C-alpha cells in the first residue's frame, strides 16, 4: 500500500513533463484561468520548481487540483501493483478496461487540442469553429471526469484505509518530503469525493455548470462548501418535521443503566451517552443525513435561540418517587442532568466519603468536591452538633432553639501555651538556687503545698501546672516573711507592729 502511495507524485511529474512541451505555447497571459489552460498552467508552475521546494500553502492549493492527479491515477493504474492489496474488493480487470478506455478518450482530446493549437491563427478568424471545438473538448472532458470519478469511487474505502495507515508516517522526521506533500492532496480528495459526486449527479448533463463546478473545485478548495450550505437548508426543513407540537411536554424516562452510565450527554434517539456534547453531535450523524449538516454539527446554542425547542421533561425511573411519572403529584425533571443527579442523590448509595471529616458521604463526586472545598471551614458549630459555614446562620439557629449555644472547639493552642508557661516557671523556679538567696519563708508554706497538689489531683486538669502553683507560694520569700504565719495573716490587718504579729502567731 505504502509503495503505491509514493507513486503518484512521480507519475504526475511524468505527466506534467509529457505536457510540458505544449505549456509555454498554450499559456495566455490574459486568460490565466481559462478552462483549458488550468492544467497546463499548473504543470508549468510546477515545472518551474523542484518538489522539495514546495511550501505548505501551495500544498493546499494543489489539493484542489485533482484534474492532473486524476490523470496520474489513471496512469498509475497501468502498473500492476494494486492487485496484491488484500483490502481492495474491486475488480482490477474491469478497472483496467475502464482506464484504457479513458486513456483512449484522453488521447482523442489531446489530438483535438493539438489541432486547435496548430490552427490557432485560423481560429482567430473563425470563432464559430473554435467554439465548436471547445465544446467538443468540454464534452469529452466531462465524460472523462465522470468516468474517472465513478472508477475512483470504487477505490474510496481504500483511500480511507490508506490515510489511516500513512498518517503516522507524516510526523516521522525521516519521512519523505514528497509523501508529506502528497498526503493532504488525497485527504482533500477524499473529503470532496462525496460532494463532488453529488454535484455531478445533480447537475446531470448541464455541461456549462459542470465545467464551472469542476473548474471551481479545481482552482479553489473552499468553493464546494457554499454548495453544501445549500443542502443544509433543505436538511433543516426536513428536521422541522420531527418537532413536537408545542403546548404539551413530552415525558422521557431513562432507564437506570443509562442514568448511571458515566456520561452526561445522551442521544435522544438511541440513548447512548457521551462525555462531551461534540462527541454526541458526531454520533448524531449516524442517525441520518439531517444531522450531518454543519448547523446540526455546530454548537447548539445558536440554534436554540432561533428555534423554540419542544418542551421535554424527564421522569425518574424509581417507582414511588415524586419525580416518577406514575406519582400523583408528579414533578418532572427538567434536564437529563437533573435526572442523573436526582437519581444518584435520592436512590443510590452514597459511596464517596470525605477523606477529611470522614462523616459526610455523597453519591455524586462533584458534591464531594464541593464539600471538600468547604470541609473544615464549617467552623460555626452549634452545641447540638449542627455545623454552619456562616456565623449569622449559626446565630440564627441559636436564636431559634431554646438551649442551643455556639460550641467552642477545643483548640490545642491553649494547651500549648499552658505547657510553655509551666516550662517557664520551671526555669524560674530553678533560679533562686543560682542566686544563692535563702528563702526561709518556705517552711511555713510547705505544709500547704501538698494541699494544693491534692486539689490539683482532684480536679485533674490542673496537674500540669502544679509546679506553677508551688512557685507562687514558695518563690522569693525574703527573711522578713519568716515570722508571718499564713494561717492567721489578715491582709487587711496592720502588719507593722510586732505586738499584733505576735498575737496573730498565737492564734
Amino acid at each position, binding site marked *: 500500500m505504502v509503495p503505491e502511495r509514493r507513486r503518484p507524485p512521480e507519475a504526475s511529474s511524468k505527466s506534467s513533463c509529457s505536457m510540458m512541451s505544449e505549456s509555454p505555447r498554450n499559456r495566455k497571459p490574459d486568460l490565466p484561468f481559462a478552462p483549458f489552460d488550468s492544467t497546463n498552467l499548473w504543470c508549468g508552475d510546477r515545472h518551474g520548481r523542484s518538489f522539495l521546494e514546495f511550501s505548505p500553502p501551495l500544498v493546499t492549493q494543489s489539493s484542489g487540483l485533482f484534474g492532473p492527479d486524476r490523470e496520474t491515477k489513471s496512469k498509475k493504474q497501468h502498473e500492476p501493483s494494486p492487485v496484491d492489496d488484500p483490502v481492495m474488493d474491486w475488480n482490477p480487470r474491469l478497472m483496467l478496461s475502464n482506464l484504457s478506455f479513458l486513456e483512449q478518450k484522453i488521447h482523442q482530446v489531446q489530438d483535438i487540442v493539438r489541432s486547435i493549437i496548430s490552427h490557432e491563427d485560423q481560429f482567430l478568424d473563425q470563432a464559430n469553429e473554435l467554439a465548436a471545438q471547445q465544446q467538443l473538448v468540454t464534452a469529452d472532458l466531462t465524460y472523462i471526469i465522470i468516468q474517472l470519478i465513478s472508477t475512483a469511487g470504487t477505490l474510496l474505502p481504500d483511500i480511507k484505509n490508506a490515510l489511516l495507515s500513512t498518517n503516522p508516517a507524516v510526523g516521522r522526521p525521516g519521512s519523505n518530503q514528497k509523501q508529506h506533500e502528497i498526503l493532504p492532496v488525497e485527504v482533500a480528495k477524499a473529503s470532496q469525493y462525496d460532494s463532488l459526486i453529488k454535484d455531478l449527479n445533480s447537475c446531470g448533463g448541464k455541461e456549462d455548470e459542470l465545467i464551472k463546478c469542476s473548474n471551481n473545485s479545481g482552482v479553489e478548495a473552499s468553493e464546494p462548501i457554499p454548495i453544501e450550505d445549500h443542502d443544509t437548508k433543505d436538511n433543516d426543513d426536513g428536521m422541522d418535521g420531527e418537532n413536537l407540537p408545542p403546548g404539551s411536554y413530552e415525558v422521557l424516562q431513562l432507564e437506570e443503566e443509562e442514568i448511571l452510565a458515566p456520561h452526561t450527554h445522551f442521544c435522544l434517539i438511541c440513548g447512548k451517552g457521551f462525555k462531551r456534547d461534540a462527541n454526541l453531535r458526531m454520533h448524531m450523524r449516524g442517525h441520518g443525513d439531517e444531522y450531518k449538516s454543519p448547523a446540526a454539527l455546530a454548537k447548539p446554542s445558536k440554534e436554540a435561540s432561533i428555534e423554540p425547542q419542544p418542551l421535554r421533561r424527564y421522569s425518574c425511573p424509581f417507582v414511588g418517587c415524586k419525580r416518577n411519572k406514575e406519582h400523583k403529584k408528579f414533578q418532572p425533571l427538567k434536564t437529563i442532568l437533573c435526572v442523573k443527579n436526582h437519581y444518584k442523590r435520592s436512590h443510590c448509595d452514597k459511596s464517596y466519603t470525605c477523606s477529611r471529616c470522614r462523616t459526610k458521604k455523597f453519591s455524586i463526586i462533584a458534591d464531594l468536591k464541593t464539600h471538600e472545598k468547604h470541609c473544615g471551614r464549617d467552623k460555626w458549630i452549634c452545641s447540638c452538633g449542627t455545623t454552619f459555614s456562616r*456565623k*449569622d446562620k449559626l*446565630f440564627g439557629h*441559636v*436564636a431559634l432553639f431554646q*438551649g*442551643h*449555644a*455556639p460550641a*467552642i472547639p477545643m483548640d490545642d493552642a*491553649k494547651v500549648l501555651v*499552658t505547657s*510553655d*508557661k509551666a516550662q*517557664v*516557671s520551671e*526555669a*524560674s523556679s530553678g*533560679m*533562686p538556687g543560682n*542566686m544563692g*538567696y535563702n528563702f526561709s519563708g518556705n517552711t511555713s*508554706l510547705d505544709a*500547704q503545698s501538698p*494541699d*494544693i497538689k491534692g*486539689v*490539683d489531683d*482532684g*480536679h485533674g*486538669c*490542673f496537674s500540669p*501546672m*502544679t509546679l*506553677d*502553683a508551688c*512557685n*507562687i*507560694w514558695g*518563690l*522569693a*520569700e*525574703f527573711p*522578713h*516573711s519568716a515570722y508571718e504565719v*499564713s*494561717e*492567721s*495573716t*489578715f*491582709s*487587711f*490587718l*496592720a*502588719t*507593722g507592729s510586732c505586738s*499584733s504579729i505576735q*498575737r496573730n502567731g*498565737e*492564734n
Partner: protein
Amino acid sequence: MERAPQQSSDSILATFSVDLLIQILDRVADSRDRKSWRQVCRGFLHAEALRRLSLRVLRLEALQGLLRRYAACLERLDLSACPSLDDHALAAALASGAGLWRLRSINLSRASGVGWRGLAALAKACPHLEAVDLSHCVGVGDREAASLAAAAGLRDLWLDKCLGLTDVGLAKVAVGCPALEMLGIKWCLEISDIGIELLAKKCQNLRVLDISYLKITNRSLQFVSSLRKLEDLSMVGCSHINDEGLQFLNNGSNSLQTVDVSRCENVTSSGLISVIEGHKYLQDLNIGDCFPELAPLFLSKLNYLRDSLTVLKLDGFQVFAPSLKIIGLNCRNLVEIGLSKCKWVTDEGVSELVAGCVNLTTIDLTCCHLLTNKALVAIGDKCKNLTCLQLESCKLITDNGLDCIGTCCSNLEEIDLTDCTMTNAAMKYLSRCSELTVLKLGLCDKVSDEGLVHIASNCKKLRVLDLYRCFEVTDDGLAAIATGCKRIKNLNLCYCTRITDLGLKHLSCLEDLHDLELRGVHCVTSLGITAIANGCQHLTELDLKHCHLVDDAGLFALGQYTKNLRQANLSYCQVSSMGLCNLLGSLKCLQDVKLVHLTQVPVEGFESALRASGGRLKKLKLLTGLRHLLSPGLIQMLQARGCRIRWVDKPLNLVP
C-alpha cells in the same frame, strides 16, 4: 501576756452569747473598729467571721486561709488586688473554702491569669453566683465566657476589655445566663451586630448595657431597642452609629433612664431628638464630644424631659448664653451639668443656667476660660446644695470668687482649682467647707503653708489633696495637714521642692495614706522614706522619681513595712542591686514598677531583682538598652506571666 487575754475573752464569751456578740457587731460599722473587734479574742473573731459578708483580699498568699475561715457566710469576694491569681490559686482557694454556697459576687478584675479552668471551677463551686467582674482581664475569651455561662443565675457580668471575647463567647453567656440584668462589654472589639442581636433576643431582662467602643452599627440598636427593661445604655465612642440607629430608640418600648452617646462622632441633634421623644423619663444624658453645636430644636425638646432629667453632660460643645438659658428653663431638676471644655461659656450663661437649675450639686466648668468671679457668685447664690465644682484652668477666677462659694456652699465636698491663680486667702474661704474631701491645688504656686493651715483647721474629712508644683509648701504645711486631716488617702507633692524628710516624718502619722507622689522632691532621703514606710503601711502607690537621695535603706524599709505597695516609680534613684532585689523580692503585691536610669544598678542587679519578683509584675518600665542585656529567658518568663514591659529610650536627665 498571752494567756491573760485568752481567759478574759473566755469570761466575756461566758456572759455574751454568739448571738449577742453578733448583735453588737452589727452596730459596729467602721472597718477600723471591726479590725479592733477582730483582735479582741478568738470568740470575737469567730463572731465576726459569722457576720462577714464581703472580703477584699489584698495578698494572694492569705486567700486560702481567709476563705477557710469565712467561706460559710461570705457573699462578696474581691480578688481584684491579686493580679497574680491564676487557675490553680483560684481552684485551690475554692477547694479550701468548700462551702462557698452563699457567694453571690466575685470581683476578678485585672486577674489576667485566670482562665477557663478556674472560672469553670468557680461556677461549679458557687451555685448562687450572681455577679462576676472580669473587666480588664485581657486574656479572657470565648472559652472563659463559656465556663462562666455555667453559672445560670448570673445577673451582673462585667467583661470590659476582655479582648479575646467574640460573638461566640457572648452567645454562650447570653444562652447560659438568661437572667442577665447588667452586662458590660466595653472594649470587646471582636463583638459585632450578630452577637448583640442574639444577646437582645436571649436576655430580655437586661437593665444595664455597656457597649462602648464596639464596632457595632445601627442594626445593633434595632435589637437593643427591643429590650423592654433596659434602663441604662452606654455606647461611648461607637463611631458606626448615627442618627438612623438612634431612631430605633424612638419607639419608647424600653424604659431607658440613662443614655451615654458621648464621642459618637456621627450622632447629631436629630438623633438625640428621637431618643428624647421616645423616652419621657430620661434622667441622665451624656452627649459630650458628639457634634460641635447645639441645635435650637434639640434644646427646646429638652422640655419633654422637664421633670425627669437630672444629669446633662455637654462636654466640648459650643454653648452660648442663650443655650444655657434654655437649658435652665427646661431642666429645672438638673442635678449635674458637665460643661467641660465648652467654648463660649460666659458668666451670663452660667447665671442664666443656675437661675433655673437651683438643685445643681455638680458643676463641671473645666477649661471654661471666660468665666470670672461673677459666675461663682451666681453659683454660690443659687446652688446651695453644691457638692462638686470643677474649675480647672479658669484663670480669671480670683480669691474673692471663692469667698461666696465658701460661705454659701457649705456642703462642698470636691473642688478642683488646678491652674487657677489662687492664694492663701482662697484657702481661708474654702476652709469653711467642713465637708471637703477632695481639694486640687495643682500649679497654684501662691498657696503656701498658711493656706494649708487654714485647710487643716477645718477640713477634717479631706481625702485627696493635690499640691502638684506648689513650690511654697514646706514641712510646716505638711505638719498642719498631718495633724488636721488625718484621713488623707491621696497626697500629691510632686515638685514641692522645699519639702524634706521632716515633712515626711509628719506625714507618717497618716495611716490611711494610700497614694503618695514625691516626684522631684529632691531633698528627701531614705530617712523620710523609712518614716513613711513605717507609718503609712497601707501605701499602695509611691512615686519617687528623681528623688536622687533615696538609696537602698529606703527600699529596705519599704520592702519590710509597706506590704501592700502595688505601684512604685524608682526611676533616677540612687539605689543599688541589693535594695532593688530586696524590694522586688519581698513585696508580694507589687505589680507596676518603673526602673528607668538606675545608674547604680548593673545588669546583673536588674536580672536578679526581676527574677526575685517571681513573675508577679504586670507592668515594667525599663531602659531600651537593657533589652538585649537582660537574659531572654527572664524576659520570656516575665511576659509569660502577663507582664507588659515598656522600653523607654530617654537621655539621662538629672534635673527634673
